């Protein structure tokens, strides 16, 4: 279980996050949504131990500020928004990095690559792939790191920063399926999302951030409602309303 108690983050003199309290359960997908600049990525960085913060973050009962990088790497993996790399690594070499502290059977790497829809890409150069393909290679690396959703130290966790932001709708659905499956198998997922439709479809628990504070948290049906969303995003939002004319499409009725 992830428990966040009175979390505040300051960068210089600016307060980015102030006094957040929430928890996330293993077996569930927790999505963090909110307008740009609300502090979503900062929150994820604090949860993964990248930023100094006030307050406490505990993962599976351990205070992350006092847990070594090695121990944390056994229980959680983190997917950044984008990962530019400066040396010509092959896709296989990048995925192996997910398991560099333990020996790994390359079959897991190939399996993970197939999972993200890039079977046969293991010999390609990472730098030559498109942004969306790079993002999926990194997802495969992250999956390999926490391959078993549960382990001796309890549930394992995925922390994902906008995992579908550079993907087309087909691959967005594929990634959401991977995320759901990970949670169903007992792992925990915390992800920052921009796409509210996909969030509504995939998340069990939604945290709506606005100006560094939690505006609302709970099930999608409770948090993704007209007033809260309109207030957070500063525009008029109406959920479950179909336009009278024009074309629209929803991921909810798309299938893999």
């Amino acid at each position, binding site marked *: 279980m992830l428990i966040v108690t009175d979390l505040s983050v300051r960068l210089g003199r600016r307060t980015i996050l102030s006094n957040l309290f929430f928890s996330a359960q293993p077996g569930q997908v927790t999505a963090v949504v909110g307008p740009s600049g609300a502090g979503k990525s900062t929150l994820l960085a604090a949860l993964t131990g990248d930023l100094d913060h006030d307050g406490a973050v505990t993962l599976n009962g351990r205070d992350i500020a006092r847990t070594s990088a090695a121990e944390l790497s056994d229980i959680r993996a983190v997917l950044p928004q984008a990962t530019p790399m400066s040396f010509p690594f092959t896709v296989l*070499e990048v995925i192996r990095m997910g398991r560099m502290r333990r020996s790994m059977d390359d079959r897991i790497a190939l399996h993970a690559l197939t999972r993200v829809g890039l079977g046969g890409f293991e010999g390609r150069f990472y730098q030559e792939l498109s942004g969306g393909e790079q993002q999926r290679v990194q997802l495969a690396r992250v999956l390999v790191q926490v391959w078993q959703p549960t382990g001796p130290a309890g549930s394992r966790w995925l922390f994902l920063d906008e995992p579908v932001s550079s993907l087309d709708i087909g691959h967005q659905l594929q990634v959401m399926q991977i995320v759901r499956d990970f949670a169903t*198998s007992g792992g925990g997922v915390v992800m920052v999302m921009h796409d509210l439709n996909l969030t509504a479809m995939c998340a069990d628990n939604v945290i709506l951030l606005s100006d560094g504070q939690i505006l609302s948290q709970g099930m999608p049906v409770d948090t993704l409602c007209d007033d809260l969303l309109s207030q957070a995003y500063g525009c008029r939002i109406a959920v479950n309303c179909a336009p009278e004319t024009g074309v629209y499409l929803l991921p909810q009725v798309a299938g893999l």
Partner: protein
Amino acid sequence: MQLDCAAPMADQTADGMTIDGDRSVTARRLSWVLIVVLSVVVLTGLATGSAGTSLWQALIDMAQGQDLSLRDRVVLLDIRAPRVIMGCFVGAALAVSGAVLQGLFRNPLADPGIVGVSAGASLGAVGAIVLGGTLTVAAGLVTWLVPIAAFLGAWITTMLLYRVATRRGRTSVATMLLAGIALTALAMALTGILVYVADDAQLRDFTFWSMGSLAGSSWSKIIVAAPLILIPLMLSPFLALGLNGLALGEAAAGHIGIRVQHLKTCAILVVAASTGAAVAVSGGIGFVGIVVPHLLRLASGPDHKYLLVNSALLGAALLVLADLISRMIIAPSELPIGIVTAVIGAPFFLWILLRQRGIVDL
């Protein structure tokens, strides 16, 4: 999601079969090739020289139980052997320093010359040449003075760099590069002042030293340089996994379990010690640190597990070869080795830059 580790995919990874994208076999083969190349170059270095002493003849004589003539003994054991060994040390130290720094900065163009480590080492060495002359030091200590001053210069520069660029236990690569530029300028200015106050003899010493040369190699210099070069070289393989992870970025390296700050501290010490010693004994030998790792990345990929070892081997072979060229091309006179590496290295470096900008694609 099928999360079973033993998923049946054995057909793709049957024993002995290489998976596409796995270059470890190529890199290991390359290590063996480089060992052979280095051996050949070292033997050629021992066998060749302007004195005309033949290594083979000497070996045959020794095999037949004859003693070497004094002249042959001096040429082979006191002139060529220390010079070839020093060439191996310096080449390996410069190439590995380059590879480690490039891994640390995640930039294939990083080099001890860029972040100010070489400039700091030079300042130390020049300080020892110029100020050392005014001190009354025992003759035996003079050999030690320049390398130790250069190591101290490199170390102090690196420490300053680290202090400036590190905030609350985190090092910013951008700040470190900027600070490196400032420190290089400062060290060069101070070196300039020292050169200005130097007398003619010191100026001559400095000029030859700064062009880079292995001509003054001796067993006593090797004894001074050996620990400063060999200890970091032997420690560098322990940095390999960490440097690989660092290619993902500092945060991501931490997420896969690497102690990033610890890694950076060790990498900086390795670079300071080996660069300081190499600069002290050989002066300004440029481009080995950039060219060698780059060539190896093209040949067998950027995996530091192999890159560091192969850099040491290729760096050693290249420098012994460059030294051979420098002492044979205008024999019995000598060209400074720094000129040879610069003449080969500088055009290569420009080619790398052009290729990266996509102007030429060779």
